């Protein structure tokens, strides 16, 4: 089937305005009759729940953490992009749009990305009004810094904790609505199923993580804002609890999963130290503003970095990409790091690392200035590695960080299931095959504050409120299925722990579907994953019961879904016989090792439909039309 993203016609800059005119409205006194479920309280979820509550809808919000302030958006460090052009350096909405679409290697929808760029400025205004303490200069004006993939300074930031401050802003707006009674928040509650009644999304089934109770909630529409699935690699920069369960189970209920293989490997993370490692820690991309990336020219050079003279260092990003230098986009920088390590020039344990050096920046400015800009990151680095990055360069290596793929949505952020909306990282829509730095926060808040309030009304205005009830047979069935799943998990009583399975899955995915993918490796993964999945269903050990707080049971459910999802991921990587953005197929590369995109055959969104257990998924395509940008070979040289 050919999918239609339902992008409005007309000139690019006018599409959203025109579309908003055409969207139906729900009158203020009718809004309170509609109930909306929002799953997840990160930037997308918290901003959506708060804004929908403000408008007068009844909102029920859910998160697995103990509070609405803890979702992993909070860990975003560097900043948020907007086309304000405050520095007068040539920025505008079109340029932000163009940089984002080019950064995504021309695999995103023009209309969506333009809208994102257009609302970016409103986000900054909104956050400042909420009291987000963005960095300012001595005159009291907002400061900007640069991020990868852009030649202008358009990134707003709050020290190294921009995600935290933006999330606390959205959480405060959410808290205000909880106080007002328009939003009811269910913390420590995990969504385990989507309920569909007569073809439309009308509710969810959840597990209360404290009491273990499994119950259903009915509503008139459901918004999934549940983030990405980088933890399919086991080691990633995501929080331990980040998972694919909500969107994967929606996929199993009929929602299409788009571009699952588009994942971002972030170039600047602290390298792995050993098998005990439970997660990887990101060092913000903003560090590349002042830090210079290098590796020794000689193979197997074990000298201390301070003993390696200048002419024996290879500043490979500056050498290969002179016009963007250390600020080359993430996918390119990550691959370049892998290359030098593959050549045997890596540093640190296992020789999987390169240097990020602040020596020059400290000489140019001062240690104090660098401390003011990145102090918290240097402190974190010291705690983890026991090394002082003011004295010697940081060691960094790429790690899974963000997933551009997600559930397929149309221009209204509605999935192929009417009434199911997907926001933020959980959808696929705006970042193509590679996301630029400081764009995730922008997208989460754009979706939640400024897009969903308009588009969901258009759906609700066409439906009668309160038609679904948890008494309906579909709800009962969903609850029973979920209870059975939980019971089965607890009854296996095998010999391997959930973590062991997860770690093993991560190894398979990282090796065969990580930074470089080949037909051969992907085939191998397709052999290994079902074996591991089969072993899991026979041999996993989950202690405790279902009627209490049981963290092993929670993990088991998530890992079971990762095991199934991993296959879909690999299938998608196999069918995309081109290299683009973060998806690098070794068979498809330029003579100089750059990604070789194939616009003729792969200029589409791959959306997968679940067809039942034991049957392969079906691939649907949404062709991507580029009316405004010229499809060019992405060059940062």
């Amino acid at each position, binding site marked *: 089937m050919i999918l239609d993203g339902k992008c409005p016609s007309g000139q690019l800059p006018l599409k959203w305005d025109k579309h908003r005119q055409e969207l139906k409205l729900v009158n203020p006194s009718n809004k309170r009759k509609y109930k909306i479920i929002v799953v997840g309280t990160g930037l997308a979820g918290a901003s959506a729940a708060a804004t929908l509550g403000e408008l007068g809808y009844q909102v029920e919000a859910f998160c697995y953490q103990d509070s609405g*302030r803890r979702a992993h958006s909070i860990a975003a460090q560097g900043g948020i992009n907007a086309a304000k052009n405050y520095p007068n350096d040539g920025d505008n909405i079109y340029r932000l749009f163009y940089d984002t679409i080019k950064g995504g290697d021309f695999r995103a929808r023009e209309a969506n990305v333009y809208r994102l760029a257009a609302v970016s400025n409103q986000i900054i205004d909104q956050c400042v009004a909420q009291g987000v303490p963005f960095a300012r200069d001595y005159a009291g004006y907002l400061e900007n810094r640069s991020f990868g993939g852009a030649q202008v300074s358009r990134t707003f930031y709050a020290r190294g904790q921009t995600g935290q401050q933006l999330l606390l802003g959205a959480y405060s707006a959410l808290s205000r609505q909880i106080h007002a009674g328009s939003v009811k928040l269910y913390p420590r509650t995990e969504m385990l199923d989507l309920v569909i009644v007569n073809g439309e999304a009308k509710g969810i089934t959840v597990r209360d993580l404290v009491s273990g109770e499994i119950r259903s909630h009915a509503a008139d529409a459901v918004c999934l804002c549940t983030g990405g699935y980088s933890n399919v690699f086991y080691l990633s920069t995501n929080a331990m609890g980040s998972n694919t369960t909500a969107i994967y189970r929606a996929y199993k209920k009929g929602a299409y999963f788009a571009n699952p293989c588009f994942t971002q490997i972030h170039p600047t993370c602290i390298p792995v130290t050993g098998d*005990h490692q439970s997660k990887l820690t990101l060092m913000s991309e903003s560090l590349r503003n002042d830090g210079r990336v290098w590796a020794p020219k000689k193979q197997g050079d074990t000298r201390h970095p301070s003993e390696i003279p200048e002419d024996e260092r290879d500043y490979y990003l500056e050498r290969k990409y002179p016009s963007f230098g250390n600020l080359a986009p993430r996918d390119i920088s990550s691959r370049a790091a892998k290359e030098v390590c593959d050549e045997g020039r890596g540093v640190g344990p296992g020789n999987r690392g390169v240097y990020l050096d602040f020596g020059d920046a400290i000489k140019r400015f001062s240690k104090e200035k660098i401390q003011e800009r990145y102090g918290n990151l240097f402190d974190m680095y010291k*705690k983890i590695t026991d090394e002082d990055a003011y004295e010697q360069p940081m060691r960094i290596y790429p790690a899974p960080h963000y997933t551009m793929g997600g559930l397929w949505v149309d221009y209204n952020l509605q999935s192929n299931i009417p009434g199911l909306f997907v926001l933020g990282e959980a959808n696929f829509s705006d970042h193509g095959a590679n996301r630029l730095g400081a764009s995730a926060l922008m997208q989460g808040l754009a979706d939640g504050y400024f897009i969903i309030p308009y588009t969901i009304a258009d759906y609700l205005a066409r439906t009668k409120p309160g038609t679904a009830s948890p008494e309906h047979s579909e709800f009962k069935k969903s609850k029973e299925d979920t209870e059975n799943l939980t019971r089965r998990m607890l009854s296996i009583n095998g010999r391997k722990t959930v973590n*062991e399975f997860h770690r093993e899955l991560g190894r398979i995915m990282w090796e065969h579907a990580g930074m470089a993918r080949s037909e051969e490796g992907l085939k191998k993964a397709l052999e290994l994953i079902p074996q591991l999945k089969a072993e899991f269903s026979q041999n996993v050990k989950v202690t405790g019961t279902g009627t209490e707080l049981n963290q092993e049971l929670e993990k088991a459910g998530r890992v079971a879904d990762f095991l199934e999802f991993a296959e879909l991921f690999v299938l998608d990587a196999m069918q995309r016989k081109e290299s683009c953005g973060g998806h690098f197929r070794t068979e498809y590369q330029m003579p100089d090792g750059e990604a070789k995109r194939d616009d003729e055959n792969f200029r589409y969104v791959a959306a997968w439909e679940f067809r039942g257990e034991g049957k392969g998924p079906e691939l649907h395509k949404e062709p991507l039309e580029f009316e405004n940008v010229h499809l060019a070979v992405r060059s940062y040289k």
Partner: protein
Amino acid sequence: MNLALFVWRQKSPADSGGLQQYEARDISPDMSFLEMLDVVNEDLIKKGIEPIAFDHDCREGICGMCSQVINGTAHGPQEKTTVCQLHMRNFKDGDTIYIEPWRAKAFPVIKDLVVDRGALDRIIQSGGYVSVSTGGVPDANAILIPKADSDRAMDAAECIGCGACVAACPNGSAMLFVSAKVAHLALLPQGCVEAARRVCVMTETMMKEGFGNCSNHYECQAACPKGIKVSFIAKLNREFIKSLAKPSEAL
């Protein structure tokens, strides 16, 4: 290295709970404290014993989920560090480590090391925000804020809401947490409009939730992983006194 652990085990809120002894073997100094507990838990699961329940999520010191009292100190021995960022190189082979949950009247234990910190959310819900709805706000640069004020607001806003201040305080007081939010917003022009009302409702909720008062022990500052200073409590008191001068209809 090998360590002896005494860990608080409590099946449910109704259970009286107690310390259980476990061994942590072959621990690498590069592990984080939580990774050490992961190792212990894997071992327990294999023996068919329920693993130790503890809250954690981001494991990079920002989500505020992890919450353990280690050898009597909230978040353990290292300054300005959450449990997840505490590394085992801070301990020695053969050490004995006591691990307990946050202890405070307002934080009932759910299971083992997991406590209910909903009271902190309810304090924020009562008024810890600027009452602005989405849309219709001025351009971001229309509100100029002196850098010093903005920086100080950020110093307060860095609070991660972990509750270590409460766990460390002999009075179980949440004054550092409340003061951080009150100060963050009162220092900014956007937030100072509602400052008087905010400080009143937040302190009132704080009292209702069963948190104690501040009697200047400064334990909260010592335990705070973000280094939030008790001077913000002085700011809270000042804001509170200022609010008393306002006529009640202005609140």
